[in-house]
C-alpha cells in the first residue's frame, strides 16, 4: 500500500511517463485525462527537475481531451476519437503515445481500441495506460520504456560496438542531459556507439535500433529489472551515474570487460586521472573537512556519498533515499553501495520520501555541516545553519542545462558547487 507523503519527491505515473516520452525528439504524448493533468504533471515532474521544459510539448501545449463530468458519466471514447482525428491532422511527430489519466483509468475507457483504429490507418500511434494512481514517476518511466520496447524496438542483427545507456530518468534527474552527454563521451572513448534515446538529437530511429545493441547499461540501482532492449539480452548494472575518478574508472572497466576493450579503457582512465588531479592539486587545502548529509533519489545519493567520502575525505552522516524502493533486494543493493566505502565509515541510511521523516533523520545528526539535497531540504539547512547544495529532485531554485554530475568532469563541477569560503 502506498504511504501518505508530505511534500512528495515525485509525481504520478502519468507524470513520469510524460516526462520520459516528451524527452524524445519528435515524440508527442497525447493525454486522455482530466483538465488539470497537463499542468500538474509538467509542474510536478519536468519543471521541478532542472526548471527546463520539454521543448516540443509542455504545460498547456500538451494535447489533451480534458475529460469533464460528461465523460465521467458517459465515457470518453467518442471524445477521444474526435480528438485523435484533429491531433493527427495538425501535429507533426514521428510517434504519438496516448497516455491515460486517473479519470480514464477509473471509468475504464477502452483506449486501446480507439487508438488501434488510427494505427491500422498507418499512423505511428500507441496507447499506454498510465493513470496516476498506478504509482509514482518511476512507474511512469518504466511504463513508457516498456511501451517503447514493445512497440518500437525492431529485431536487427547485433552491432558489437553499439550499447544502450538506460536508467537516467529525463528531468527527474536534474542533471539528466548533462549526464548523458558526459557518459556518452566516456563510452565513445572506448570506441562504442551509444543509444540514449533522449540526448544528442537522438529519436525514434535510435529506439528502433536499440535491439541491435550488444549490451544494455543500466545506471540505476533498481529500475528496468525485467526489461531488455539489447537483442543479446546482455545487461550491465551500475547503481548510479558514476561520479569521480574511482567510480568512473570502475564503471569504464566493467563496460570494457563486457565489450572487450580493456586496453582502451586503461589508457583513457589514465588520461582522465591526469587531467582530474591536475585540477585537484590546485585546490588542496581550499576546503577543510566536513561532515555531510545527503537527501535525494537513491541513484543520486549513492554517487554523491561515495565520491565525497572516497575521494574528498568528507564524512557522511546520514543518507536519505527519497524514492520508493519496494524490494528488499534493492534496498540491500543500495545499502551495500552506500556502506562499501574505501576508508570512511558508512552513514545512517534511511528510506523515506516523507518530508517530516526526512527532517527527523537529518535532525538526528546535529554535527553535519553540509546538506546536499533537494529544494525541499533548503528549509532544514537554513534553520540549522548548514551549508546547502541543491543537487537533487525536486529542484525549483536552480537552472540546470547540461551541467553534469558524471565522470571526472562532473566531479570537478560538483566540487565547485560544494566549495564554500565560510
Amino acid at each position, binding site marked *: *500500500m*502506498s*504511504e*501518505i*507523503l*508530505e*511534500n*512528495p519527491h515525485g*509525481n*504520478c*505515473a*502519468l*507524470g513520469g511517463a510524460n516526462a520520459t516520452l516528451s524527452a524524445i525528439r519528435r515524440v*508527442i504524448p497525447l493525454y486522455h485525462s482530466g*483538465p*488539470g*493533468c*497537463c*499542468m*500538474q504533471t*509538467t*509542474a*510536478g515532474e519536468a519543471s*521541478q527537475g532542472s526548471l527546463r*521544459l520539454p*521543448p516540443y*510539448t509542455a*504545460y*498547456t*501545449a*500538451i*494535447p*489533451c*481531451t*480534458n475529460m*469533464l463530468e460528461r*465523460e*465521467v458519466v458517459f465515457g470518453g471514447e467518442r471524445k477521444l476519437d*474526435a480528438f485523435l482525428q*484533429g491531433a493527427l*491532422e*495538425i*501535429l*507533426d511527430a514521428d510517434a504519438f503515445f496516448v497516455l491515460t*489519466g*486517473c*479519470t480514464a483509468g*477509473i*471509468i475504464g475507457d477502452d483506449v486501446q481500441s480507439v487508438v488501434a483504429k488510427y494505427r491500422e490507418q498507418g499512423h505511428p500511434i500507441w496507447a499506454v495506460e498510465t493513470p*496516476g*494512481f*498506478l504509482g*509514482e514517476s518511476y512507474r511512469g518511466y518504466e511504463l513508457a520504456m516498456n511501451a517503447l520496447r514493445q512497440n518500437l524496438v525492431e529485431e536487427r542483427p547485433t552491432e558489437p560496438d553499439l550499447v544502450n545507456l538506460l536508467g537516467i530518468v529525463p528531468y527527474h534527474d536534474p542533471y539528466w542531459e548533462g549526464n548523458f552527454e558526459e557518459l556518452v563521451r566516456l563510452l565513445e572513448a572506448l570506441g562504442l556507439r551509444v543509444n540514449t534515446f533522449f540526448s544528442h538529437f537522438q529519436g525514434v530511429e535510435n529506439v528502433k535500433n536499440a535491439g541491435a545493441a550488444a549490451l544494455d547499461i543500466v545506471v540505476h540501482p533498481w529500475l528496468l529489472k525485467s526489461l531488455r532492449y539489447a537483442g543479446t539480452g546482455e545487461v550491465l548494472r551500475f547503481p548510479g551515474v558514476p561520479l569521480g575518478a574511482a567510480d568512473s574508472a570502475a564503471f569504464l572497466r566493467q563496460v570494457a570487460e563486457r565489450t572487450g576493450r580493456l586496453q582502451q579503457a586503461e589508457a583513457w582512465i589514465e588520461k582522465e586521472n591526469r587531467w582530474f588531479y591536475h585540477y585537484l592539486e590546485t585546490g588542496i587545502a581550499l576546503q577543510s573537512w566536513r561532515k555531510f548529509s545527503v537527501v535525494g533519489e537513491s541513484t543520486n545519493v549513492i554517487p554523491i556519498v561515495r565520491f565525497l567520502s572516497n575521494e574528498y575525505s568528507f564524512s557522511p552522516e546520514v543518507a536519505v533515499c527519497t524514492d520508493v524502493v519496494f524490494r528488499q533486494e534493492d534496498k540491500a543493493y543500495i545499502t551495500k553501495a552506500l556502506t562499501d566505502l574505501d576508508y570512511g565509515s558508512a552513514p545512517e541510511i534511511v528510506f523515506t520520501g516523507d518530508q*517530516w521523516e526526512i527532517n527527523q533523520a537529518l535532525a538526528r545528526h546535529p554535527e553535519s555541516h553540509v546538506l546536499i539535497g533537494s529544494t525541499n531540504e*533548503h*528549509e532544514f539547512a*537554513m*534553520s540549522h545553519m548548514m551549508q546547502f547544495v541543491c543537487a537533487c529532485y525536486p529542484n*525549483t*531554485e536552480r537552472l540546470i542545462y547540461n551541467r553534469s554530475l558524471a565522470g571526472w568532469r562532473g566531479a570537478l563541477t560538483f566540487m565547485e558547487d560544494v566549495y564554500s569560503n565560510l
Partner: protein
Amino acid sequence: MAYNGIREQRQDTETINDWGGSSLAAARDFPQKCLGRADRSFSQGLQCQQINSVMALLSMEDAAFVVHSPLGCAGCCSMANDWYRVGQIYRGSMALKNARVLVTNMDERDVVLGAEQKLAKALRLAWERYKPKVIFIFTSCASGIIADDVDSVAQEVNAELPDTVIVPIHCEGFKSKVCASGYDAAFLAITKYVLEKEDAGETIPNLLNVFGPPTVSTVDQMEVERMLGEIGIEANYLPFYASLEKIRRIPRAAASSAICKVFADEFMKDLERRYNIPYSHTIMPIGTRNTDRWLRGAAKLMGKEQEAEAYIAREREAIAPLMADLRRRLEGKTVFITGGTGRTFAAGALVDDFGMKLIGMQTPTYDKNIQEDVERLNAIHGDFVLDVANMMPFEQVNLLRKLKPDVFIGVPIWAARLGLPTTHVLDIKRPTMGYRNLVYLGQKIAAQVENPGYNKRIAQYATLPYKESWYDSDPFKYIVKEG
C-alpha cells in the same frame, strides 16, 4: 438556488469558453445570446480548478494542506510553494518555510476500496506534526469519482481535534472547464466551515477586504496596500500570506474589493448578502486608467473619494514624464495579448496608455461581466480578433503567424519560437500594478520591443509541434457548436 461554485453553470453570467472571431461581432452578438455554447473537438490542456484552489491558499501561514489524490495532483503545489518561498524572501524572511502539504497518495487499491481512512490519517498527521490552526483538504478527480465522503471524514476528525478547523474544498477537476471555479470552491468552503460558524463581530470602519489572486507578486501586493494606505484605507489582504485571523476579519470589513475580475467576485456578492458588505468589482489595477478605476471603486465605498482623486492626480503627475517617454518608444506598435481573464482585459486597456494598438486577444471565458470590457476595448482599439480560449497554443501560434503583431504579451513559451518580441503582464515575482509599478512594466515592454535578440535568434532553431498546413487553416476549425 445557492451558487455551486461551477462558473460556467451560473445562469446569470451566460459563460462561454469556446469561441473565436471578431471582437465587434462578439460584443454585438453576445447580448442576443448568439455566440452559443461550444466545445473544441481537438484541444490542448486546460488548467483544472484544483490548481486554482491550491494556488489561492497555499501561502496561508498557519495552515496545513491535505491533497486527497494520487501524487500527480500535488504537482502544482510545488509551483505554489516556490511562489510562497520567494514571497518570504521578498518580505525579508530568510527562514524559507515550505508549505506543509500532505498527499494521501491514492493507489490502485484505494481507488477500488476507497481512501477515507487514509484521508483521516493524513489529517491527524498534519495536526500531530504542525498543530496548524486550519487544515485545508483539496479533493481530486480520483477521490470525486470514487465518491469518498470527504466531508464526513473532515467532521469526524475535527471532532477529535478541537483546536484546529478542517476545511474540505470540493475542487474535483472534472467538474469545471473554468479553472477560476477553484477560487470559488475555496471561498465557498471558507464560508461554510469558518465564517458561518462564528459571529461577524463589529465592523471596522476603515477596513477594506482586498481579495488578490496568488499570481499577484509580493511587490504588487505591497504597492496595493501602500496605495490604499495613502488614502486612509486599511487593507485586509487575502488570501495570499493570510492567516485564519485575517479570514475571521472578513465579515468585519466596511467593504470589499478584488484585484482580479474573476477572483472572489461570487464571494463578495455572498458577503454582501450575508453581512451587508458592499463591494467593488472593476478591473485589475494595471495601467493608469485601470488603476484609476480600481482605486475609485474602492474609495467610493469607503467614503474616500476626495482623497483618492488627490492621490490619483499626484501619482499621475509624478509618473507623467516617464510615461511620455514610454509612449514615445511604444506608440503605434501592434499587440497580441493572452492570459487569464482578469489580466487580458486589464492589459488591453493598459497598452493604450502607451499608444499601442490591440489586434488580437485570447481570454479563457466570455460572460456578462466581460461584455463591458470588450465594449470598452472596441471603443479604444476598434475591431480585433478575439479567441475565447484558455491559451490553446495551437490556435495562438496560428493567429500570431497570420496577424504578425509587433509585440506579444502573455506566456511567451510559444510566441518566442516565432521570433516575436514577448513580454508579460503576469509576473509573479516582479512589479506590474499601480502607478509606480507601471513604469517598470512599461520599461519591460519597451525593452523587449527594442531588443528582441533572444527571440529572434532562438526562432532560427526552435520548433513547434504543428504541421505547416495548420498555419494555413482556420484557427477556429476545431470549435464545434453544441447542438
